[in-house]
Protein backbone atom coordinates (compact mmCIF):
# COMPACT_ATOMS: atom_id res chain seq x y z
CA UNK A 1 0.00 0.00 0.00
CA UNK A 2 1.39 3.40 -0.87
CA UNK A 3 1.63 6.27 1.51
CA UNK A 4 -0.91 8.26 -0.52
CA UNK A 5 -3.49 5.51 -0.23
CA UNK A 6 -3.56 5.56 3.58
CA UNK A 7 -6.62 7.37 4.82
CA UNK A 8 -6.11 10.23 7.20
CA UNK A 9 -9.58 10.65 8.66
CA UNK A 10 -10.51 13.72 10.67
CA UNK A 11 -9.70 13.78 14.33
CA UNK A 12 -12.44 12.48 16.61
CA UNK A 13 -11.01 13.82 19.83
CA UNK A 14 -11.46 17.50 19.10
CA UNK A 15 -7.77 17.95 18.34
CA UNK A 16 -6.72 20.79 16.06
CA UNK A 17 -6.32 19.66 12.44
CA UNK A 18 -2.99 20.42 10.79
CA UNK A 19 -1.96 20.28 7.16
CA UNK A 20 0.54 17.53 7.88
CA UNK A 21 -1.39 14.25 8.10
CA UNK A 22 1.43 12.69 10.11
CA UNK A 23 1.16 15.43 12.70
CA UNK A 24 -2.57 14.85 13.10
CA UNK A 25 -2.02 11.12 13.50
CA UNK A 26 0.79 11.73 15.99
CA UNK A 27 -1.43 13.98 18.10
CA UNK A 28 -4.21 11.40 18.07
CA UNK A 29 -1.77 8.66 19.07
CA UNK A 30 -0.55 10.83 21.92
CA UNK A 31 -4.16 11.03 23.11
CA UNK A 32 -4.35 7.25 23.29
CA UNK A 33 -5.74 6.29 19.86
CA UNK A 34 -3.78 3.20 18.91
CA UNK A 35 -5.56 3.07 15.54
CA UNK A 36 -3.95 6.38 14.59
CA UNK A 37 -0.56 4.78 15.14
CA UNK A 38 -1.68 1.91 12.92
CA UNK A 39 -2.17 4.43 10.11
CA UNK A 40 1.31 5.84 10.78
CA UNK A 41 2.79 2.35 10.51
CA UNK A 42 1.05 1.81 7.17
CA UNK A 43 2.33 5.13 5.86
CA UNK A 44 5.95 4.58 6.82
CA UNK A 45 6.52 0.82 6.91
CA UNK A 46 8.23 0.64 3.51
CA UNK A 47 10.62 3.46 4.29
CA UNK A 48 11.47 2.13 7.74
CA UNK A 49 11.95 -1.40 6.44
CA UNK A 50 14.14 -0.09 3.61
CA UNK A 51 16.23 1.91 6.05
CA UNK A 52 16.61 -1.05 8.38
CA UNK A 53 17.64 -3.19 5.41
CA UNK A 54 20.38 -0.70 4.53
CA UNK A 55 21.95 -1.38 7.91
CA UNK A 56 21.21 -5.06 8.43
CA UNK A 57 21.53 -6.33 4.82
CA UNK A 58 19.23 -9.21 5.68
CA UNK A 59 15.43 -9.36 5.21
CA UNK A 60 14.66 -11.14 8.50
CA UNK A 61 16.90 -8.89 10.59
CA UNK A 62 15.53 -5.83 8.80
CA UNK A 63 11.98 -6.89 9.63
CA UNK A 64 12.89 -7.40 13.29
CA UNK A 65 14.53 -3.99 13.43
CA UNK A 66 11.59 -2.32 11.71
CA UNK A 67 9.28 -3.81 14.36
CA UNK A 68 11.60 -2.66 17.14
CA UNK A 69 11.80 0.81 15.63
CA UNK A 70 8.03 1.21 15.46
CA UNK A 71 7.64 -0.08 19.01
CA UNK A 72 10.30 2.28 20.29
CA UNK A 73 8.70 5.16 18.37
CA UNK A 74 5.34 4.34 19.98
CA UNK A 75 6.89 4.41 23.44
CA UNK A 76 8.83 7.61 22.81
CA UNK A 77 6.09 9.43 20.92
CA UNK A 78 5.13 11.57 23.91
CA UNK A 79 8.62 13.08 23.74
CA UNK A 80 8.27 13.99 20.03
CA UNK A 81 7.84 17.76 19.98
CA UNK A 82 7.36 18.17 16.23
CA UNK A 83 10.56 20.17 15.66
CA UNK A 84 11.19 18.09 12.56
CA UNK A 85 8.99 15.95 10.34
CA UNK A 86 7.69 12.79 11.99
CA UNK A 87 9.25 10.71 9.22
CA UNK A 88 12.69 12.19 9.92
CA UNK A 89 12.33 11.49 13.63
CA UNK A 90 11.20 7.95 12.85
CA UNK A 91 14.23 7.40 10.60
CA UNK A 92 16.49 8.52 13.41
CA UNK A 93 14.83 6.08 15.82
CA UNK A 94 15.31 3.32 13.21
CA UNK A 95 19.00 4.20 12.77
CA UNK A 96 19.48 4.11 16.52
CA UNK A 97 17.78 0.72 16.87
CA UNK A 98 19.80 -0.81 14.00
CA UNK A 99 23.14 0.56 15.18
CA UNK A 100 22.49 -0.62 18.73
CA UNK A 101 21.72 -4.10 17.44
CA UNK A 102 24.82 -4.13 15.21
CA UNK A 103 27.11 -3.06 18.06
CA UNK A 104 25.46 -5.64 20.36
CA UNK A 105 26.16 -8.35 17.79
CA UNK A 106 29.70 -7.10 17.37
CA UNK A 107 30.30 -7.19 21.15
CA UNK A 108 28.96 -10.71 21.44
CA UNK A 109 30.84 -11.83 18.37
CA UNK A 110 27.61 -13.19 16.88
CA UNK A 111 28.37 -11.80 13.44
CA UNK A 112 31.66 -10.58 12.13
CA UNK A 113 30.82 -7.24 10.64
CA UNK A 114 32.64 -7.95 7.46
CA UNK A 115 30.93 -7.20 4.26
CA UNK A 116 29.77 -10.14 2.22
CA UNK A 117 29.17 -13.72 3.25
CA UNK A 118 32.08 -16.10 3.87
CA UNK A 119 30.91 -18.39 1.12
CA UNK A 120 31.14 -15.56 -1.39
CA UNK A 121 34.49 -16.37 -2.91
CA UNK A 122 33.76 -14.75 -6.23
CA UNK A 123 35.68 -11.55 -6.67
CA UNK A 124 33.24 -8.72 -7.12
CA UNK A 125 33.90 -7.27 -10.51
CA UNK A 126 33.97 -3.53 -10.53
CA UNK A 127 30.61 -1.96 -11.50
CA UNK A 128 28.89 -5.29 -10.89
CA UNK A 129 25.96 -5.59 -8.51
CA UNK A 130 28.18 -7.65 -6.17
CA UNK A 131 30.64 -4.78 -5.85
CA UNK A 132 27.81 -2.39 -5.07
CA UNK A 133 26.40 -4.75 -2.46
CA UNK A 134 29.87 -5.03 -0.90
CA UNK A 135 30.09 -1.25 -0.69
CA UNK A 136 26.64 -1.01 0.93
CA UNK A 137 27.65 -3.57 3.56
CA UNK A 138 30.74 -1.51 4.34
CA UNK A 139 28.57 1.37 5.62
CA UNK A 140 27.73 -0.64 8.76
CA UNK A 141 31.43 -0.73 9.59
CA UNK A 142 31.68 3.02 9.86
CA UNK A 143 31.54 4.62 13.31
CA UNK A 144 27.96 5.02 14.49
CA UNK A 145 27.52 8.73 13.77
CA UNK A 146 29.08 8.46 10.31
CA UNK A 147 26.95 5.44 9.43
CA UNK A 148 23.85 7.37 10.50
CA UNK A 149 24.57 10.49 8.46
CA UNK A 150 25.61 8.54 5.36
CA UNK A 151 22.54 6.31 5.47
CA UNK A 152 20.13 9.18 6.09
CA UNK A 153 21.75 11.29 3.40
CA UNK A 154 21.50 8.61 0.72
CA UNK A 155 17.94 7.78 1.68
CA UNK A 156 17.08 10.82 -0.49
CA UNK A 157 14.17 11.74 1.76
CA UNK A 158 15.98 13.74 4.43
CA UNK A 159 17.64 17.07 3.78
CA UNK A 160 21.01 18.18 5.13
CA UNK A 161 19.27 20.67 7.42
CA UNK A 162 17.01 17.98 8.85
CA UNK A 163 19.91 15.60 9.49
CA UNK A 164 21.84 18.37 11.24
CA UNK A 165 18.80 19.22 13.39
CA UNK A 166 18.27 15.56 14.25
CA UNK A 167 21.87 14.98 15.23
CA UNK A 168 21.91 18.32 17.11
CA UNK A 169 24.98 19.51 15.24
CA UNK A 170 25.69 22.59 13.10
CA UNK A 171 25.50 22.25 9.34
CA UNK A 172 29.25 22.75 9.02
CA UNK A 173 29.94 19.86 11.38
CA UNK A 174 27.58 17.65 9.39
CA UNK A 175 29.46 18.43 6.18
CA UNK A 176 32.75 17.61 7.91
CA UNK A 177 31.32 14.32 9.14
CA UNK A 178 30.09 13.48 5.63
CA UNK A 179 33.53 14.20 4.21
CA UNK A 180 35.25 12.04 6.82
CA UNK A 181 32.66 9.31 6.44
CA UNK A 182 33.22 9.15 2.67
CA UNK A 183 36.98 9.04 3.19
CA UNK A 184 36.72 6.29 5.78
CA UNK A 185 34.24 4.36 3.66
CA UNK A 186 36.60 4.52 0.71
CA UNK A 187 39.40 3.07 2.86
CA UNK A 188 37.18 0.24 4.12
CA UNK A 189 36.00 -0.57 0.60
CA UNK A 190 39.60 -0.62 -0.65
CA UNK A 191 40.58 -3.00 2.15
CA UNK A 192 37.65 -5.27 1.40
CA UNK A 193 38.35 -5.34 -2.32
CA UNK A 194 42.03 -6.05 -1.67
CA UNK A 195 40.99 -8.79 0.76
CA UNK A 196 38.75 -10.46 -1.76
CA UNK A 197 41.53 -10.32 -4.35
CA UNK A 198 43.92 -11.99 -1.88
CA UNK A 199 41.35 -14.69 -1.15
CA UNK A 200 40.93 -15.31 -4.83
CA UNK A 201 44.71 -15.59 -5.36
CA UNK A 202 45.08 -17.86 -2.31
Amino acid at each position, binding site marked *: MTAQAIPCWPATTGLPMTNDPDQTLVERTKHGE*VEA*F*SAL*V*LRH*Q*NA*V*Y*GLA*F*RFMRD*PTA*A*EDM*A*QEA*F*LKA*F*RLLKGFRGKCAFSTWLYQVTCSVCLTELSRRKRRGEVALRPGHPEESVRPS*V*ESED*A*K*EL*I*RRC*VARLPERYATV*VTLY*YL*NEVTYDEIAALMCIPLGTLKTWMHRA*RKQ*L*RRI*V*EEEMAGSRTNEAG
Partner: protein
Amino acid sequence: MKPVNLDGLIESALRDEPARQAPAHLHDSVMVRVRCSAMLAQERHSFLKRWVMCAGYGAVLLAAAASIFRIGLASRIVEWMPGLAGNLDYIRATYLNSSALSLLPGPAWSIYTVASGALAIAMAALAAHRLSRT
Protein backbone atom coordinates in the same frame (compact mmCIF):
# COMPACT_ATOMS: atom_id res chain seq x y z
CA MET B 1 44.00 -1.69 -17.12
CA LYS B 2 41.41 1.00 -16.78
CA PRO B 3 41.66 2.78 -13.36
CA VAL B 4 38.65 2.35 -11.14
CA ASN B 5 36.73 5.43 -10.10
CA LEU B 6 36.06 4.18 -6.58
CA ASP B 7 34.43 7.39 -5.36
CA GLY B 8 31.99 7.29 -8.25
CA LEU B 9 31.29 3.64 -7.62
CA ILE B 10 30.62 4.25 -3.90
CA GLU B 11 28.36 7.18 -4.73
CA SER B 12 26.41 5.18 -7.28
CA ALA B 13 26.15 2.11 -5.00
CA LEU B 14 24.67 4.13 -2.16
CA ARG B 15 22.46 6.34 -4.28
CA ASP B 16 21.04 3.61 -6.51
CA GLU B 17 20.06 1.21 -3.81
CA PRO B 18 16.63 -0.09 -4.82
CA ALA B 19 13.63 0.75 -2.64
CA ARG B 20 12.35 -2.24 -0.74
CA GLN B 21 8.80 -3.27 0.02
CA ALA B 22 8.05 -4.19 3.60
CA PRO B 23 6.73 -7.72 4.11
CA ALA B 24 2.94 -7.92 4.02
CA HIS B 25 2.65 -9.05 7.64
CA LEU B 26 4.90 -6.31 9.07
CA HIS B 27 2.03 -3.99 9.90
CA ASP B 28 0.09 -6.71 11.75
CA SER B 29 3.16 -7.84 13.71
CA VAL B 30 3.96 -4.27 14.72
CA MET B 31 0.40 -3.55 15.81
CA VAL B 32 0.20 -6.71 17.93
CA ARG B 33 3.32 -5.62 19.79
CA VAL B 34 2.14 -2.02 20.05
CA ARG B 35 -1.25 -3.06 21.49
CA CYS B 36 0.47 -5.36 24.02
CA SER B 37 2.80 -2.53 24.97
CA ALA B 38 -0.14 -0.12 25.39
CA MET B 39 -2.00 -2.65 27.56
CA LEU B 40 1.06 -3.23 29.72
CA ALA B 41 1.57 0.50 30.17
CA GLN B 42 -2.07 0.89 31.18
CA GLU B 43 -1.78 -2.01 33.62
CA ARG B 44 1.39 -0.50 35.10
CA HIS B 45 -0.40 2.82 35.52
CA SER B 46 -3.40 1.29 37.28
CA PHE B 47 -1.10 -0.76 39.52
CA LEU B 48 0.65 2.44 40.53
CA LYS B 49 -2.69 4.13 41.10
CA ARG B 50 -3.87 1.28 43.36
CA TRP B 51 -0.60 1.40 45.25
CA VAL B 52 -0.91 5.14 45.82
CA MET B 53 -4.53 4.72 46.95
CA CYS B 54 -3.52 2.00 49.41
CA ALA B 55 -0.81 4.27 50.73
CA GLY B 56 -3.39 7.06 51.04
CA TYR B 57 -5.80 4.88 53.00
CA GLY B 58 -2.90 3.67 55.13
CA ALA B 59 -1.99 7.27 55.91
CA VAL B 60 -5.61 7.95 56.90
CA LEU B 61 -5.62 4.98 59.27
CA LEU B 62 -2.27 5.97 60.65
CA ALA B 63 -3.42 9.55 61.24
CA ALA B 64 -6.60 8.31 62.94
CA ALA B 65 -4.65 5.90 65.12
CA ALA B 66 -2.13 8.56 66.00
CA SER B 67 -4.90 10.99 66.97
CA ILE B 68 -6.59 8.39 69.22
CA PHE B 69 -3.26 7.42 70.67
CA ARG B 70 -2.34 10.98 71.53
CA ILE B 71 -5.71 11.77 73.06
CA GLY B 72 -6.22 8.58 75.08
CA LEU B 73 -2.90 7.11 75.90
CA ALA B 74 -0.36 9.85 76.06
CA SER B 75 -0.96 10.52 79.73
CA ARG B 76 -0.73 6.81 80.57
CA ILE B 77 2.58 6.45 78.77
CA VAL B 78 3.94 9.31 80.80
CA GLU B 79 2.76 7.47 83.91
CA TRP B 80 4.36 4.23 82.77
CA MET B 81 7.64 5.85 81.91
CA PRO B 82 8.58 8.31 84.61
CA GLY B 83 12.09 8.52 83.29
CA LEU B 84 10.85 9.52 79.84
CA ALA B 85 8.48 12.04 81.38
CA GLY B 86 11.33 13.51 83.40
CA ASN B 87 13.46 13.79 80.28
CA LEU B 88 10.64 15.44 78.38
CA ASP B 89 10.12 17.89 81.22
CA TYR B 90 13.81 18.66 81.21
CA ILE B 91 13.88 19.17 77.43
CA ARG B 92 10.79 21.32 77.56
CA ALA B 93 12.16 23.42 80.40
CA THR B 94 15.59 23.81 78.85
CA TYR B 95 14.93 24.25 75.13
CA LEU B 96 11.24 25.02 74.59
CA ASN B 97 10.71 27.80 77.08
CA SER B 98 10.26 30.42 74.45
CA SER B 99 8.50 28.28 71.85
CA ALA B 100 4.80 28.29 71.18
CA LEU B 101 4.55 24.62 72.10
CA SER B 102 5.61 25.19 75.66
CA LEU B 103 2.90 27.84 76.08
CA LEU B 104 0.06 25.49 75.13
CA PRO B 105 -1.90 24.30 78.14
CA GLY B 106 -3.11 20.67 78.44
CA PRO B 107 -6.62 20.94 76.91
CA ALA B 108 -5.25 23.02 74.04
CA TRP B 109 -2.97 20.14 73.14
CA SER B 110 -5.96 17.82 72.82
CA ILE B 111 -7.86 20.30 70.63
CA TYR B 112 -4.77 20.79 68.48
CA THR B 113 -4.35 17.02 68.11
CA VAL B 114 -7.99 16.38 67.17
CA ALA B 115 -7.99 19.27 64.70
CA SER B 116 -4.77 18.16 63.00
CA GLY B 117 -5.98 14.56 62.87
CA ALA B 118 -9.26 15.61 61.30
CA LEU B 119 -7.41 17.75 58.76
CA ALA B 120 -5.08 14.84 57.90
CA ILE B 121 -8.08 12.53 57.42
CA ALA B 122 -9.87 15.08 55.23
CA MET B 123 -6.80 15.67 53.06
CA ALA B 124 -6.13 11.95 52.63
CA ALA B 125 -9.79 11.30 51.73
CA LEU B 126 -9.68 14.11 49.19
CA ALA B 127 -6.47 12.73 47.68
CA ALA B 128 -7.97 9.23 47.47
CA HIS B 129 -11.12 10.62 45.83
CA ARG B 130 -9.09 12.56 43.23
CA LEU B 131 -6.91 9.53 42.49
CA SER B 132 -9.91 7.25 42.06
CA ARG B 133 -11.21 9.61 39.34
CA THR B 134 -7.98 9.67 37.28
